[in-house]
């Protein structure tokens, strides 16, 4: 069975991007509102399961510290938008788009202050992420 939230997200992705869905873990392994890291094709990502059982994937690397810690941030909302706060310096990012919503007085150490996101779908209780070939942030966001 496909998850409603994840379906919406995959439908948003336009065009048949050359990519494959990779099974990562059971959804049951993800605590609600508590992230966990995953290693997919050598890329580190942070998976978050929300109260509506939707699953979101963003980059594990915190653009403001360069450390791989995003999965350990506090999940919440800003004006209804689901968010995660960086555990290092507390910037706030949208879990849907990866956009940095609050950066305080900090500058990112990476080129972008935003988080890269991956499409997620849950099939028969298994979390899949779409791993684009040579994927970049632009590919996913377009």
């Amino acid at each position, binding site marked *: 069975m496909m998850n409603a939230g994840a379906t919406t997200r995959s439908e948003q992705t336009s065009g048949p991007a050359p990519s494959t869905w990779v099974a990562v873990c059971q959804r049951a392994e993800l605590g609600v509102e508590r992230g966990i890291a995953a*290693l997919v094709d*050598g890329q580190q990502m942070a998976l978050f399961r*929300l109260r509506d059982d939707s699953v979101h994937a963003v980059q594990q690397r915190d653009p403001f510290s360069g*450390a791989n810690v995003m999965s350990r941030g*506090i999940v*919440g909302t*800003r004006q209804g938008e689901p968010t995660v706060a960086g*555990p*290092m310096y507390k910037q706030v990012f949208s879990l849907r788009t990866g956009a940095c919503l609050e950066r305080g007085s900090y500058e990112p150490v990476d080129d972008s202050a935003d988080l890269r996101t991956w499409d997620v779908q849950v099939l028969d209780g298994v979390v899949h992420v779409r791993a684009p070939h040579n994927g970049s942030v632009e590919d996913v966001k377009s």
Partner: protein
Amino acid sequence: MTSADQQRRHLVVIGGGMAAQRLVEALVARDSDTDGRWQVSVFAEEPLKPYDRVALTSYFSARDADELTLGDPGLWDQPHVRLYRDRKIESIDREAQQVTDRLGETWNYDELVLATGSSAAMPPIPGNDLPGVFVYRTIDDVAALRGWVEAKREEGKGARFDRPVRGAVIGGGLLGLEAAGALKALDAQATVIQFGTHLMDAQIDLGGGQALKRLINDKFIAVRTDTVTQEMRPSRRTGHVGRLDFGDGGRLDVDVVVVATGVRPRDELARDAGLAIGERGGAVVDLSCHTEDPHIWAIGEVACIEGRCIGLVAPGYAMAEVVADRLLGGQATFPGADTATKLKLQGVDVASFGDAFARTEDSMEIVYADPVAGIYKKLVMSDDGKTLLGGVFVGDVAAYASLRPLQGSELPGDPSSYITPTGSGDGLAGLELPDDAGVCSCNNVSAGTIRSAVTEQGCTDLAGVKACTRAGTSCGSCLPLVKKITTTELEKVGVEVSNALCEHFELSRAQLFDAVRVAEVHTFTEIIDRFGYVPEGAADAGRGCDICKPVIASILASLGNGHILDGEQETLQDTNDHVMANMQKDGTYSVVPRVPGGEITPDGLLVIGQVAKDFGLYTKITGGQRIDMFGARIEQLPQIWRRLVEHGFESGHAYGKSLRTVKSCVGSTWCRYGVQDSVAMAVELELRYRGLRSPHKLKLGVSGCARECAEARGKDVGVIATDKGWNVYVGGNGGFTPRHAKLLAEDLTSEELLRTIDRFLMYYIRTADRLQRTAAWIEDVEGGLEGVREVIMDDSLGIAADLDEAMSRHVGAYRDEWRAVLEDPEKLSRFSSFVNAPTTPDPDLAYASERGQIRPATPQERDADEDLIRPVLIAGTTLEVRA
């Protein structure tokens, strides 16, 4: 000495009181802007740094001279400032421009400032030199008086009639009433003997004096007005003062007498130097504070300005500012004396300002009096009833702070509305002070200065405005007004003054704590559903954020809701609490095993050493007498904990808003000076409060004697051993704004000490704001430290039993939190590096070697990628460090 130093001119200040302190502070602050032209030497007769004489009475409750220290003590450590204490100046040679101190040393001066202040006047009453007769002027006077009263009380205990010590105060002015309050604080009886028709007759009129007498009587202080003291007679048995004989034939038996009939300027140096002296004493100065000698100035109570000496601190400060300005080439002149006064006696409110006696021609008096309640309020208005000239307030001084700055201005509306009970609220609320109205007379801060602190300097709260303008930092009586102006101004510039936690809760932390406690809710979801803020058009309050979730985590932990990672609670924990270790810059963690009181066996040291070695961790001794091990990966944490648990350790709370450590010195078991076993007490305290969650981090310290080697007064709770038990200090911290803890209670038994700290911590946890440390919290509690003392020592709110019970629940429920994770597979599963590769280390971690240990590689080293150390699989735990 540099050439700049040689060019400096030498300013000598005689006297180390409040005016001298202000002069040096103002001069140094402005002189450093101009590269420094002055070398300053201050010669003080007393052995202390300048202290707050206005607050002398508080020395009775505080007993700690440090608390009276004025301003930033660092002032006296500045390179071009020297304070010579206990160094009275004996003579001035105007010709040679030299002064000679009591040791016979001479000092050249370019400019000389007399700031010798006053001495307490002793009226020529026979018997005024008997033992047991005191004046009330210096810390030494206060200490001697206290010692005498305590000795008399001890004598009384052995006597046939066990009676309290009987005290009398001659003089019913400001100082006399404070002295009477001090006697009461020492559990002595007090009778105030006033020569004039009513109390405080220099400040308030007869009507006010009568209301004041009622209030003073309510404090169980007797008052005799219109009374001349003819003689003080000795007790035949002891030779100490024993009886007062009055002009009307009355008598009063006494054990102690305080004379507070006024002060006399210390102008002897000026007299000897041949300077002009005022009719009633004091060195005569003009409005620039110059004496007739072009190189000699006088400020404060020794200066006779506009024909009189003024025994108040605000005019002294104003003179100090004038001289500082003149020494730097300015043209400031004395603005005229602000003689507004406020009595600092707990529970008795008296204030007056301006023309309190309606001496202005054709002025009108508007009076409101409620003799039953002991309230008397009077406004003096100009003949047209529009301009405010002065006022007297007894029993209810709420309007004083708002009205005093308006002296000389037109009051909008009906003047009576400001003092009648129904009108006062409305009248005051609408008041808008002109920018040039003085708000803080101690520090000469105007309403406009406070406004610009908000509008131009970006201050966003009261604390910021205080720091920026110094308003309210001396006597504090103007603070309500400073707060009001600040709040109004913040609202005007669109800064919402709100104590809301975040967008999800409109409550403050303390309000939320109460709500959660009373409603007995136990999960975040219940709390946000019930108390969360639902914005217009939204379906619910959302799911919290990194501000409110950790606050709620802390509240739930304080109310005893099981392990911090149980159920939904695990999603609320902040970065470090989340994995119960300290996150470092590369995303790995440090582990600090608990070492209660800093006491550790050699075997214990070996265990920690071996664990660090086996897991390849960097080690460092912490500031809290612990050993910190750095570089532990998330998936290694349970293994490290297991090793520690196996050897009788637990990991420790070196993180989070919780009890950190209890630091101690070695104490009486080894130290030849120690008077109590400070290590045993520190161990007991740490084991008692470990795991306690609080609004901010908590640190404790225990010293085994007054030498204070554990630096306990830099802690939130500092315990210092005495011969009789323990003294406990509260509200200290290091960090960005270091604070010394202040004395809360003395000579406690160990049991009393625990109860006192239990209540202090629990009261703090329940009522402090988010991220508010104990020092700031104490300031916010109504009544400050005294208010805290009343709640936890005297149970003034009736909550002591509740606080005790809450703490005892915490102590009883504590479990090793790390061990609990090891025993719970569900929790343990969170400690994996990757959900799909649980033991694979983060491949991006890289270390360099420095001084024989690892440290995270710098970006440059990563780019070069030479010889970096990379983590290996958990099975082989070691990161080898090459020498």
